[in-house]
């Protein structure tokens, strides 16, 4: 089922009583989530991701805007009638119930025609448990489970009523790094198997990029960019999105455009056509650096970090906003570590220009 968010807005009254201002947790969110897709909702802490999920599941009422499930307007429907599955950040498993009872809980709420027999219930519970591979833990209490197992139980509980929409609020943030990798694959697999329209909230760009069909990048309650993960990475609309995606993060320089040439300090690093003379921020992805004896960008050599397949060159430049520049080059490259200066050429496709004030992207033509 597709989900349509139509100018969705949520404002909270300010906690500061003297100021009558409001906090806009979600502002004017418009988006149509296609049926059966996994959408990653991505942004730093406090940007309104949980609020968006709570609006979709009905725990919060929007200040303005509408929500549609398919063609039905559900804006004023209470959560108990929306039929969404929600996995909470800290799982919210009922501590006094066994795993089986926890998973069964939503089924016992069904009334009237939807009411299930004992056997049907057992079957559904078993199927959900099998999907997340916890059949062996059914009689345990949540406190007797590891974080990863609890998380699976929470997913099983959300899936058992076969919701048309599955919402996951930072489901992996309580897991250790290895389990996180494993479980995100698991979530992807389950989503593919069940084809449930899923919204996956995370502040970890790696997580969102790796499993989402589409990502939505948010900042301070407002959507910055929506698109396929690779597209957003390759074509960020502003400096925030460019900085938020990618590990290691993008390198940002202060620079300027003069006569169709892009300058970082005194180094003319690139031909950029179609941009009037102005000061800009320049973002260069770590993989956008090419080691060249005669490269235009002169950096002071810091150190080398060998990472097996690649080598990470850590250097400095006065025009760079951060202390160090991190560039990734193939391990085979010949690097003269004795020299003080390391020289780079830049790959035009990995270089982005942004307005100094609005931080919006400035496009340029690359001369062949």
């Amino acid at each position, binding site marked *: 089922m597709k989900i349509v968010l139509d100018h969705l807005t949520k404002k909270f009254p300010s906690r500061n009583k003297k100021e009558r201002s409001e906090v806009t947790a979600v502002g004017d969110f418009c988006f149509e989530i296609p049926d059966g897709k996994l959408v990653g909702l991505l942004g730093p802490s406090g940007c309104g991701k949980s609020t968006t999920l709570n609006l979709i*599941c*009905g*725990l919060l009422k929007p200040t303005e805007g509408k929500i549609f499930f398919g063609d039905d307007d559900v804006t004023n429907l*209470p*959560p*108990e*009638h*929306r*039929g*969404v*599955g*929600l996995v*909470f950040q*800290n799982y*919210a498993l*009922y*501590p*006094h119930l066994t795993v089986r009872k926890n998973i069964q*809980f*939503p089924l*016992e*709420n*069904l009334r009237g025609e939807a009411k299930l027999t004992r056997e049907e219930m057992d079957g559904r519970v078993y199927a959900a448990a099998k999907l997340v591979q916890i059949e062996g833990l059914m009689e345990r209490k949540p*406190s007797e489970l590891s974080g990863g197992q609890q998380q699976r139980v929470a997913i099983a*509980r959300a899936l058992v*009523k076969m919701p048309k929409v599955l919402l996951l609020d930072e489901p992996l943030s309580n897991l250790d790094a290895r389990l996180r990798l494993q479980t995100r694959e698991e979530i992807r697999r389950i989503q593919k198997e069940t084809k449930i329209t899923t919204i996956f909230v995370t502040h970890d760009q790696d997580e969102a990029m790796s499993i989402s069909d589409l990502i939505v990048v948010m900042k301070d309650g407002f959507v910055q960019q929506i698109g396929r993960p690779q597209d957003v990475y390759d074509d960020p609309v502003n400096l925030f999105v460019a900085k938020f995606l990618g590990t290691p993060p993008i390198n940002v320089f202060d620079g300027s455009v003069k006569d169709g040439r892009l300058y970082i300090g005194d180094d003319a690093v690139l031909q950029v056509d179609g941009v009037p003379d102005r000061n800009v921020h320049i973002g260069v992805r770590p993989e956008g650096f090419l080691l060249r004896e005669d490269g235009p960008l002169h950096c002071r050599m810091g150190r080398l970090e060998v990472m097996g397949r690649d080598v990470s060159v850590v250097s400095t430049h006065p025009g760079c906003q951060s202390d160090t520049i991190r560039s990734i080059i193939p391990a085979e490259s010949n690097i003269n570590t004795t020299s003080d200066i390391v020289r780079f050429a830049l790959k035009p496709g990995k270089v982005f220009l942004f307005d100094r004030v609005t931080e919006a992207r400035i496009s340029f033509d690359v001369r062949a």
Partner: protein
Amino acid sequence: MEKQNFKGWLYLIPAILFLGAFMIYPLIDVFIYSFEEGYNSASQTYLGTGGYNYSYVLRDPYFLQALKNTFILVIITVPVSTILALLISIGLSSVKPLRNLFQTVYFLPYVTNTLAVGLVFMILFKKTPYSDGLVNLLINAFGGSSVDFIDGPYWAKMFVLCFYTVWVVMPFKILILTSALASVNQVYYNAARVDGTGSFRIFRKITVPMISPTIFYLVITGFIGAFKAYSDAVALFGTDLNAAEMNTIVGYVYDMLYGDSGGYPSYASAAAILLFAIVLTITCINLLVSRKHVHYTG
């Protein structure tokens, strides 16, 4: 390990000494008294040992009356006060405006002196030459005839005693239960709502289990408190409780020691030990029942 044990005991010594001197020793003493037959308090001598004191007490109609009163009081007031307190606490937790005001109002009886509360109940229930009491005025307004709640039929007096007891014990229960309710994480309610749970089922399947340790605590202390009731009856019916048929076990013990018919420490001890045995049994049953129904979660 050894050393830690030693330290632990060291910390416990003050409490053990205190409890030993003021609880264990008197308890043993009472136990011994209760088996000394024909004790004479003037000469501090007794004739022999045996179970006579118990058989006397158990055949004493005043004791049987007190036993019956106490049991009725316990069986009515503990469930009624706990359930009422639970309902009121849930009401209190769901109102936002004026919650603190309501909380204070409900807590007032707790900080009010028992005898002062008794006085209020007199005004409500007592028949005087000038007035039949507020409650009777109400009954009359609905077309009923006046009932003498203080000096009248047994059931009317028992009703007032139960009403009074419930009223006195409720504030504490409400206080404890509202804080227990407030400590239940909202996320469980959210989870249940998203899963389509009706509000009564949320109450039964989530709220009650989550606060079950608190409810259990209130039931246990409620039972014990009700079994030890005495001052409430005095506040309502005066000190001659036997005549009013409103005596309780503790009242009986007191009367046997200091009352007009008193001076029988052996009978008083036997009655006290019987009460102790009853409370112990009930508490053990409570503990057994709780194993199944109380959920302790870290």
